[in-house]
């Protein structure tokens, strides 16, 4: 399991922040959510997910809280911080610019 490339890593951060923008979730739920929303196209590997979560937490974009999961077990729930919300907006904007640009090139050919 190699390290995700920069593009993928940045994208994964965006996906995680986006997923957490509606409600607090634990790691498993984040992976599931991304999988569902993307129509099973994006499969987040645990090997990328947890390092990414911990990195985002270290950077203060998200914060973690232990709570009870739907099955009644203790789980670590992540939620966005105010800074994380601002970061999400920034990353969304930059993603839109980037994907728009790539689209332009792809469609022109």
């Amino acid at each position, binding site marked *: *399991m190699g390290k995700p490339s920069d593009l993928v890593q940045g994208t994964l951060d965006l996906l995680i922040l986006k997923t957490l923008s509606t409600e607090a979730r*634990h*790691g*498993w739920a984040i992976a599931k959510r991304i999988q569902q929303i993307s129509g099973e196209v994006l499969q987040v*590997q*645990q*090997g990328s997910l*947890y*390092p*990414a*979560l*911990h*990195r985002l*937490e*270290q*950077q*203060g*974009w998200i*914060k973690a809280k*232990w709570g009870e*999961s739907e*099955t009644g*077990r*203790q*789980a*670590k729930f992540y939620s966005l*911080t*105010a*800074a994380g919300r601002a970061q999400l907006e920034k990353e969304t904007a930059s993603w839109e610019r980037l994907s728009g640009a790539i689209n332009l090139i792809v469609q022109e050919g």
Partner: protein
Amino acid sequence: MRWLDRIRMRVQMLFRRGRAADRLDDELRFHLEQQIAENIAAGMNAEEARHAAMREFGNPAALRDQARETWSWNGVELVLRDLRIATRTLLRTPGFAAIAILVMALGIGANIALFTVVRSVLLKPLPFRDPDRLVRLYEHSTDDKFPYNASAGGVFAEWKKQSRSFSDMAISGYVGYNLSGTRGQLPENVRAFEVTWNLFPLLGVDPALGRGFTQDDDRASANGTVILSWGLWKRRFGGDPAILNQTILLDAKPYTVIGIMPAWFSWPDQSRQLWTPLEYRELADQLQALDEHNFIAIGRLKPGVTVKEAGAELSVITRRIHDQHLDNPFVSKSANIRSLLDSMVGEVKTPLYVLLAATGCVLLIACLNVANLLVARGAARRKEMAIRAALGGSRMRLLREQLMESLILSAGGGVLGVALAALTIRWLLTAQPEMARAEAIHPDSMVGAFALALVVFSAAFTGVVSSLSAGSRWVLAALQESSRTHSGGLARTRLRKLLLTLEVGLTVVLLTSSGLLLRSYARLRSSNLGCITQNVLTMSLDLPEVRYKEDAQRANFFDTLLARVRSLPGVQAASYIFPTVPGAGYGGDSGFRITEHPPLPQGQSQYARTLFIDPGYFATMGIPIVRGRIFSENQRPRHPTEIIVSETFVRQYLAGEDPLGRHIHKGHDTYEIVGICGDTRHEVSEPAAPAMYFALDAAEDMNSATLVIRSDRDVTQFALPVQRIVQELDRDLPVSDILTMDEVIGRNTADASFDATLLLIFAASSLLLAAVGLFGVLSYIVAQRTTEIGVRIALGAQRGQLLRFILADGLRPALYGLVMGLAGSALVTRLIQSMLYKTQALDPGVFVLVSLILLFVAAMACLLPAWRASRIDPMQALRTE
């Protein structure tokens, strides 16, 4: 608030790391459980669900590590882990660790100590205002023999009047006083310094208490004033500020104490205990004389003026004076300037840098040795490393661990070395208290940085050298080699031999250098002063002018003292000399003319040491009268007519003539040469200078003399009885510099002895290190080749042949090192030529001796492993696999 979150996070990661790790495990386990639950929901049985989930999940340990890598403090944690592993590894071989740390401590400690001295003495600026603009001014004598001569009062006055390069200049001179006892204290001879009033402002130093000198204090008509050193004030006057404005007696004359200098201040050296105004004390003719070089001149350069420009300006002025007095050959013709710091430490510069270079060599040898030990250990741990590399330990990781090991060794060595250095410096200060600026020797932050740099350097050096051969490309080879260890690891052995060769080479350089210094010292000690030195005691007396105004008073004192000393049982002979006994310094000289000779060409001069003695002196010191006789008894005070000259004097100035009966004209008097005496040396290391001896009791204003006493037994026992006699004659008269002749010589050769001893210690420890290194390498080679040797013996090799074979293997690096070292020495020893006395830098005796010693030690170090190899039992050797 993001920064707040981040700080909270950091704190949490630092102090609750264990808890965070548990949480991470829990989090991952939860994920796995969820997956299993989902799999079960999808219809798998429990066992299947678990396996599938685990498969998908991957390696939990690796996943955990990846997550942890994102945590803050991860770097610190890794370093700590390396540290733990390295410590554990080292503790497994405590003997090795201890030796390595000791070796490092030796190298690092010696370097810190020497660096502290070099930094404090040579590099640290003087503690004065803008010290880099302070310079010492010298006259350059007409005959070019003394480029850094003291200044004459009259020449200095012209410098001061005419030069434009200096914002200020001052003169000063060494003096001594009898400080009379007050409140029942004993009188005391104090070393002092007379200064013009502007010297302290020029240096930029104010008294701690009271005031400095003013121009009004600094003239003959003023009242006597004195400034005390902090030390004298504390010691003699109990640190009582009430001493200010009180009067003390110096040479029985009243001086008012006007100030106390700060505790840190010492000028020109620590022995000076008080300062008096120069022009108050010096006679006007001294201040105007052009040819009496008595004063130490100091200047402060104006901003933007270089030393060179200022020197050129003073030279021009001096030249002008010289040209106006062409009839006087003692008026200098140019001037020299050097920085004040250089003028103080010029003499110790070369020896200190030589010693620093030597300690550098010792450190390098220590590093090479530790690297050698690490390589040997690396060989033993080779399989472990190979297995770890095979299991995925990254090369970087393994290298880091190795570097960490050498860092621990160096740091341990550094800590121990600092302690060692502290002890060394303390010893040094007691061994060399008179070294220039000894009082400035303190470790400072720069020394700390240097110590740190040494540790890092040693760690990097040993670590990198020892891991040079630990590359992962040999993993496979190491694993394959595991079945049989025949002559394996050749590359490592080669590296170790190379390190050894370097080590031996450096050792040889140290050995030859110390050998040369020792030889030079031995020559110095055995050089003949020209007089008896055994069981001779010397002591100095200074009669205060105020109380001994009349010649008769002085003569009375000297005669009575001498008569009483001579009558002490056990005293064989006693007499006086002024100013110095042989071996105690030059004293002074005077110009003269030989009446029977035609006048000297203009600008040429004749001069000889001027000594005053009583007629018994030659007999007391065992100096032969070669021809003629000693003074007759009819030398009336102030009307001396006779003179005795030395053999060198005759050789130099009266060659080919009959010297007896010739006349010497000196000052206003003419003397007849009545005798010729043997030569004595004023310095152990200098050839005898021409000398003239005058009758002491016939000389004018002769207040001082050195009493010499010879006995046939231990002469120090007379020190107290003689002092008691002096006290009985004059209660206020102190006796100073009570030394045997051996001590006088010892003082003058102390530096040479010190340098040679230190260097010898360094060389001996290097030799020991090299021997240990040789022994280690050869033992290792023999151990590695046990099987091979066993096979050879089984096939019929002779034991003697094997012994030679192994010996040659060990001696080869020693031989290469020796050749390299001798070549290096030939280059290096030239640099210490200036420290050698009657010894050539390429002294063949020393080089041969060093070679023999080195070969002997190397052979000894190799003998045991070689002998062991030749005793190997082939059956056992073949079975060890």
